[in-house]
């Protein structure tokens, strides 16, 4: 899927001392989740101690996006990797609340909290 590649919501993956930080941007919907899932698999394969997903620049997320994060959570749990989400806009937060997944994920207000 070439066009999925063009469409990746992953803007940046960078190693910080405390965690591997994955920055997402734009709309995370069915159109853009195939590439997201592939990249998240590669991120987990790097076996970091902690993964932080920075969602500050995400404007919209639908259940396909949430489903990708649920998959990520399952695989990080299996491999004992810590996973934190941060920087959710109210609109993004509300889909986690609607799905009640806000209690399942470790959600921090800002990146600095997730790196603490």
């Amino acid at each position: 899927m070439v066009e999925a590649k063009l469409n990746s919501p992953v803007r940046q993956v960078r190693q910080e001392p405390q965690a591997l930080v994955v920055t997402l941007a734009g709309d995370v919907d069915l159109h853009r989740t195939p590439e997201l899932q592939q990249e998240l698999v590669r991120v987990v394969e790097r076996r970091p101690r902690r993964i932080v997903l920075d969602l500050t620049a995400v404007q919209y997320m639908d259940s396909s996006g949430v489903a990708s994060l649920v998959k990520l959570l399952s695989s990080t749990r299996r491999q004992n990797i810590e996973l934190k989400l941060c920087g959710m806009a109210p609109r993004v937060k509300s889909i986690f609340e609607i799905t009640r997944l806000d209690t399942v994920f470790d959600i921090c207000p800002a990146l600095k909290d997730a790196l603490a």
Partner: protein
Amino acid sequence: MSAIPPQPIRLSLASTPAHLPIVRAGVGEIARLVGFDEKAVDAVVLAVDEAMTNIIKHAYDGRNDQPIEAAFTALSEAADGGPAGLTIVLEDRGKPVDPAAVRSRDLDDVRPGGLGVHIMGCCMDRVDYTPREGGGTRLTMTKFLRAADKPGARQPQLTGGTRG
């Protein structure tokens, strides 16, 4: 907002994820026009996005060139005595829905499946699947402007789930 004409706004598109941003943008403005606040607008947008996503994934097995028809009707307080709101009908000509499958999943079970239907039920006041005449599925979702009578997250109501 009495100036909204009663006839529905109709949109027909293809079953491609590429069309999702178009639908979201249009639906958001329709919900705003009907008078929903921004939180409710987001909920309506999310519900329609999920419904389209399901049609693409399940009814059409990921084929991206199949037809989806949407109709948006503003419900006026005066016309039916009930509360004003918005009814959205989405029709596909794909694989019919299995009524047993279209059910909120258990949330304790952390896995992807079943989120979409759950989200639609949370976002809208009514969610009804019925077989479409001529094949496929007709999904009717309604959200009322007065949210007072809405007891939080509700299961979607499944009616007419028998296949045509």
